[in-house]
Structures are given as C-alpha cells and as structure tokens.
C-alpha cells in the first residue's frame, strides 16, 4: 500500500520566526491524523503547506492522486492543484465564514463543487444538496436560506457538506469545532466521526483540543515551536506521553 500523503522535511518561516521545521510523516488511506499543540506551535502553517495553500521554503509534499497518480503538491500547476482541491480534497476552516459563500443559499454552497465540474441540472443539484443537508442534520427546508441566517454550529455542518459533496478522498480540517459551544461541538464531532467512517475518508485534523483529537484521530503528532516533538497512535500518546511537552498538555486538560 502507498501512503496517500507524504511530507518530507517541510520548513516554513515568517520573517525571522520559524513556523514549522523539518516535518516528516506519511498519511495512509483511511487514516485520520491529528496535529496537536498550543496556538503558535505551527500546526496551521503545516496544514496550509500540506494543502498547497502556502509554499514551504524547504521540503516536499507528495499526494497519491486518483486522477494524476503520485504528484508533488507544490510542483503541480495551479490549474491542477485547484482542480484537485475541489474534487479529491476538502478543506474545513475553523471559521465557517471563510469556507462558505455567505451571500448565497445553502443549496448554492453545496452545489458549487458539482457545478464547477459540469453539473447543469438544477433539479438534480438541488436534490443532491437536500440529501446532504440531511446527512449533516440540517432540516431540508433550510435549503434556500443563506448561511448568515444559520447558527455557528449549522454553518460548520454546512461547510462540511459543501466539502464532502464531491466525495473527496482527503479532507484537511483546521480546528473544525473551535469557537463553538461544548454541546454543539459534541454533535459535530459525532457527525464527523460517522462521515469519516461511512465515506472511508482520510483526514488531517489540526486541533489544540486533545479531547477532539482522542475522539476523531487514529494517530497524533505533537508540535511545539514549529517542530514535531512526539508522534504515535493517539491512545498511546495520550495515555502514555513520553515528551515533557506532551505530558504537560495531557496534564492540563480534564480527562475525556
């Protein structure tokens, strides 16, 4: 089996500050990898480098594409990278407003990826969009409402639907439950877990919340000051942390 996504020696600085340094890992098909650490530890920078949104100064990211075979994400033409990112990939932002078109209805938001690859039957697009509202537990009669009329949790579920409608193989998630109430978070985590299972998704998930990591991820990388200080199976890392920083992180949260 080939890894779906591989990072080798990824390094990115902002000015004098090193945001991530020399990061290596493989992501296997069907696997959910968590990247945890405090804010400023470089995890979002790393995620953006992986998804081709930010160019690393050093290192490479390779992806095993269904359409193009094994490709270097940063060597791809912009055309291909953009096509990949709206067909084989998804990206769930922490702030749903960045991942949604706030000025158009939920149906249009979900339908965009379908239309981008040629769907031209209004009724079919609508039906698919309605089905997806069901799957993310939003009532169908909210199809024509704009996300501005949605609650924070609903927006996040809509963003998930908008990404998954093209049946991507790989989803990048940046603090998908950040900034939401605990009860709302729990519902989204359940939803994500069942979607990941039923769609056999692979995912890279960035979070500062070890509870989220424990619930969703199979494997964990712990980042501090831009470097990976520990990695392993999620339960192992959380139950028996080896690095002092991980121990501090684990000790500072309530047990899940």
């Amino acid at each position, binding site marked *: 089996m080939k890894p779906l996504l591989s990072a080798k020696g990824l390094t990115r600085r902002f000015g004098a500050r090193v945001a991530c340094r020399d990061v290596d890992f493989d992501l296997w098909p069907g696997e959910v990898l968590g990247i945890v650490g405090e804010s400023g530890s470089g995890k979002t920078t790393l995620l953006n480098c992986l998804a081709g949104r930010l160019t690393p100064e050093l290192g490479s990211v390779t992806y095993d594409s269904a359409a193009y075979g094994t490709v270097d994400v940063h060597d791809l033409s*912009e*055309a291909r990278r*953009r*096509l990949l990112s*709206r067909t084989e990939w998804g990206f769930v932002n922490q702030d749903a407003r960045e991942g949604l*078109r706030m000025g*158009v*209805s939920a*149906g*249009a938001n979900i*339908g*965009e*990826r379908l*239309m*981008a*690859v040629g769907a*031209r*039957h*209004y*009724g079919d*697009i*609508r039906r698919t969009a309605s089905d997806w509202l069901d799957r993310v537990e939003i009532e169908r009669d909210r*199809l*024509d409402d704009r996300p501005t009329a949605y609650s924070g949790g609903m927006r996040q579920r809509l963003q998930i639907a908008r990404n998954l409608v093209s049946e991507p193989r790989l989803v990048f998630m940046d603090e998908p439950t950040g900034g939401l109430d605990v009860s709302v978070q729990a519902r989204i985590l359940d939803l994500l877990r069942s979607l990941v299972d039923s769609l056999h998704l692979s995912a890279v998930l960035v979070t500062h919340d070890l509870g989220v990591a424990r619930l969703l991820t199979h494997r964990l990388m712990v980042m501090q000051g831009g470097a990976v200080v520990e990695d392993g199976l999620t339960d192992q890392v959380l139950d028996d942390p080896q690095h002092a920083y991980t121990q501090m992180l684990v000790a500072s949260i309530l047990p899940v």
Partner: protein
Amino acid sequence: MTDGTYNYAYLDEQTKRMIRRAILKAVAVPGYQVPFGGREMPLPYGWGTGGIQVTAAIIGRDDTLKVIDQGADDTTNAVSIRRFFAKVAEVATTTRTEEATVIQTRHRVPETPLSEGQILVFQVPIPEPLRMLEPRETETRTLHALSEYGVMQVSLYESIARHGRISKGYNYPVMVNGRYIMSPSPIPKFDNPKLDRSPALQLYGAGREKRIYAVPPYTPVKSLDFDDHPFEIETWEQCCELCGSKESFLDEMIVDDDGKRLFVCSDTDYCERRRTLPEAAE
C-alpha cells in the same frame, strides 16, 4: 479634423496599430479579454471610449458608419459619437443597418440580421463577466485561465432558488466557443441569440477598463443556463404601436399623466423601414 491638429480618425497611427494588434489577438482567442493601452479620449469614460477607440482603429474613408444607443440612431450619445466620426474621419454615416459597414452600438444589437463583412462594435462598461461575483482582477483572470466557472453557475442557481427563474435581464453571460465566459455588454438578453454564429464580426471595447475582446463570424455563443431551466428571452403581449412588429424589442413609454403606456420598437431604423416599405413588414 481637417485643420491638421489631429490625425485622421483622431488617434495617431501608432495607437491605431496597437489597438489593431489587440483586436487581432482578440479575434484569434474568441471571448478572451485582451488588455490594451487605452487612451484618454475627448469623450468621458463610461460614455463609449472603448467602442470609439475600436471604431477609430478600424475605420477608413470607404466605410459607412452607423451609431446607435438603446437601439436608436437619434439618442444623444449616438448623435454625439456619429458627429465625432463624421468630423474626424470624414466617413459617410447612415441610419440603415444593411448599408453600414461598421455599426457602433450601446446596449442593443440591431433587429435587421447582419451579414458577412459587417462589423458590430460594442461599447462595454465592465468587460469582466465575473466582476460582481469576484472583485479582484488577479483572481478573475485566474478563473478564466483555468476555466473555473463554478461561481458563475452558482449565481444562476441562486437566482432560480430565489426567484424561481434566472432573473438576469441584460448583460446576460455567455460562453464563447465553448471556452471563455464573456459579458455581451449590457444588451438585453433578447439580443443574445443574435450573437450566436453571427456572420458579422463582433468587437467589444472597454475604454476605462482597457480591454478588447471579440467574437469572430460564425462563432458559437451560448447563453448560460440549466438543462431544466433553459435560457429564454423577453416577450411582450403588445406589438409595436407604430409598425406592428411582434418580433422586436419594445420600449415602453409613459405618454400621459395617468401613466398610459405605449410600446414601440427600440430599433428605430427597423421600425421606420417596416412603416415605409410595407413588403418589409411582410
């Protein structure tokens, strides 16, 4: 002008050559917006400077020019532009569509079918069809380059979701030659079908935005739509009060203080021909 202060057709020859090069490129890549070094013109931006520059670059003494605005030859802006060219290019002018070799237009395509050898020059305010969906030029150029047109279809979807139909009445986006989405300029969608495989050459000039684009003769031009919500044009219950036409685009006029309406052809030449030549009206 004849006193030697200005060159023939106002623009200097170097500028005309630059514009012609842009036009050739535009013809070679139908629907693609070619940036060009638009000049300041003695008419204000937004009043047809793009169309005027295109006309000035292609017009010669043998040409016969027709200028329309809102379909009419006698609207103020059409009169002003026609006088400008009569003065600086010493060309014959006409109001008859079939007599003209160059027709400069704002907001309409003549009702009389165009023929090979004719050139239709459109005045374009905003050449970028995606502009109201994406304000950034760097981004819209990328979207065109990658044929990434989902956002345009999203806007049509939204229109149906909101209104039950595509509610865009004018400046209705088209796909040119299966490759570039193009703004047909603010013509009513009624005129869109006339752009498809037209025997005439269509040139579009945007002066303020400094873009030229073109649709060569017989090029497919498709108005965007959905399979189950096909493109359709405006229709009227009334016919033209003056010539009785049921096929032309009608202007609505309020004729008295009680708000009584009267409908007449927007294309004044077409209407007049039908009235003076009964056979033209069948």
